């Protein structure tokens, strides 16, 4: 196993690598429920880094270990150059953290929530107002409204303001777009881009694959394992074979038939299309699949060769990864 000696001298790299996780493992219930196994990743200064994976992949566990809320069973982690176990107090002072639920006081107004968190971090709303100005202006008309009465999108903005109010060096956002409408989600990612401009390092998790392209780099995570870490473009580009999109009058019938065909490596529904890969692709896959579909009496068959997305790569990695380890958990 390759041993990266960067981890043994963390202070040398901590200046430009605010988040370092080194072979973190964690299990719950006395080791019976594994949550993370051998997770390593590095986030560079000023990077918008996405942790992409389905529910239960271990995203929140990793966030809690990095924000000093949980102790890992093994492995080390550093945030802003501080060890998450020994120097947890310094980390708690410097990072901004937005937990999975929008953790606000529902019975306090927007203004009161913001003032409370500002004071808690030993600062004032005015001190770093510049940083949150663009976001806060949007919810300012509702500053006397109780947080519980806000819409999901506005709650999300307020929670972000609260996490930013002390101008953290590193920002941890655990599924910030879950339960928020599409428009608010798009706005939120634009806000993150702006925060990045201000030099804040951001680690964000999301179960939505289509949000991954908004990040500088992403890590795909499943069953507590990191599948791949790279830029979104390179991850999608790493798809090893040709990918075909297929469609017919009876999508479900086509899915069943293709799965039964020994030439097909994988076939899964993707929106209103089926995504198909072949075992031995000789370059004429489009014609081959069409031919097969028509022998099976499918009508209105459309077959295209398409560029794979991050989700395709994730599914491919997840299925091939699951095989050697078995389902494991």
């Amino acid at each position, binding site marked *: 196993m390759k041993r990266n000696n960067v981890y043994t001298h963390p202070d040398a790299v901590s200046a430009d690598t605010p988040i370092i996780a080194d072979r973190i493992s964690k299990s719950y219930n006395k080791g019976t429920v594994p949550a993370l196994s051998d997770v390593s990743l590095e986030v560079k200064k000023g990077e918008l880094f996405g942790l992409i994976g389905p529910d239960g992949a271990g995203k929140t566990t990793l966030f809690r270990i990095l924000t000093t809320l949980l*102790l890992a069973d093994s492995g080390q982690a550093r945030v802003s150059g501080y060890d998450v176990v020994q120097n947890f*107090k310094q980390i708690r002072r410097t990072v901004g953290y937005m937990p*999975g639920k929008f953790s606000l006081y529902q019975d306090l107004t927007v203004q009161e929530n913001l003032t409370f968190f500002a004071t808690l971090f*030993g600062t004032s709303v005015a001190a770093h107002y510049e940083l949150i100005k663009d976001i806060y202006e949007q919810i300012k008309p509702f500053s006397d409204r109780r947080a519980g009465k806000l819409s999901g999108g506005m709650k999300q903005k307020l929670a972000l303001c609260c996490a930013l109010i002390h101008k953290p060096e590193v920002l941890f956002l655990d599924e910030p777009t879950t339960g928020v409408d599409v428009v608010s989600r798009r706005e939120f990612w634009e806000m993150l881009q702006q925060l990045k401009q201000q030099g804040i390092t951001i680690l964000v998790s999301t179960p939505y694959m289509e949000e991954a392209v908004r990040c500088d780099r992403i890590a795909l995570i499943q069953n507590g394992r990191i599948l791949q870490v790279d830029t979104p473009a390179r991850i999608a580009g790493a798809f090893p074979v040709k990918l075909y999109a297929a469609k017919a009058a009876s999508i479900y019938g086509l899915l069943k038939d293709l799965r039964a065909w020994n030439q097909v490596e994988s076939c899964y529904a993707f929106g209103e299309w089926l995504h198909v890969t072949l075992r031995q692709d000789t370059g004429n896959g489009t014609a081959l699949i069409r031919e097969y579909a028509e022998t099976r009496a499918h009508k209105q068959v459309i077959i295209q060769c398409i560029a794979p997305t991050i989700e395709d790569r994730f599914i491919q990695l997840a299925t091939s990864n699951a095989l050697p380890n078995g389902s494991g958990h």
Partner: protein
Amino acid sequence: MKQLFVFIRKEFYHVFRDRRTLLILFGLPLVQILLFGYALTSEVKNIALVVTNASNDVLGQQLTNQLQASAFFKVQEQQLSPTEIERAFKKGHIKAALIIPSGFGSDFIKARHATLQVLTDGSEPNISKTVLQYVTAIVQDFQRAQQPATSVAFTITPELRMLYNEEGNGSINYVPGVLALILMIVCTALTSVAVVREKETGTMEILLVSPFKPVMVLVAKAIPFLILSLVNFAFILLLAVYILNVPIAGSLFLLFMITLLFIATSLSFGLLISNATNSQQVALLISMMGLMLPTIIFTGFIFPLENMPLPFQWISNLVPAKWYYAAVKSVMLKGLGFAYVWKEMGILCVMTILLLTITVNRFKIRFT
């Protein structure tokens, strides 16, 4: 320091914006004081007493009048047959009946011996006993009044006095009990729920990932309820003195100090519960079942402790409210000083220190 102040202010916002909390805080003492003071009184007054007078003579009528004159009975004169009386008892229309037989007056004068029959509803033993006592007393009075000449014979008349409560005011006993109960609920249940709510809404995560000292969260949670409990204490005392006419015989300062100590014990209990649980329901359940019930049963203000089997008496020693109740009774009702309550105060002190030590040691600065 400013952080703590803002935190405490936030806690007051929580309390004053939640109707249920406010209701428990100030509605409960009012309801309980009034309930225990008026509705759940153990005094027996205005009992319906049916008098069936078969004698139709002067003596029988005089006895009836005497019964009627007392405040204890509402006398209804009805000529009922034994079967009719039994039916009335069965239907629950009457609780007590007095039957004066025919020839009552002549028996008393001529034979120097007359009998009366008093019937009571034994399914309510407390009322039955009280009715029998009252009727017996009235009949004895009546008998003495009829033969003043013979009263020169040797007689012993017990003179009864209820010390510290001459009028037999039933609410006097309840006020210290209600005090213990209310303070226990406010401090333990509300405090534990307030801490656990932060865990449930996820705000505890942010509080932990902040420069605020984790143990100070407990301090910030306890102080508002300490203040509110003292307000409550004053409120209950005012209700007791001005509505129930229960006097405060002893030192108000000593009473205040004992209460402060008991509040500290209850707050520690609440914080300990909040450490051990993660949901508001569980916290509330433990506070209510684990503390309110023992407070009602083992404090002695409803069920006398002396009548309990020994093991229960030992258990009662673990209930803080028992010691508080005893101390408050001594100071408030008997007017005793510190020399008589130092033991109770000492026990509460030890309990508080023990609970606080466990709580602070077990307080988690991380999740598991």
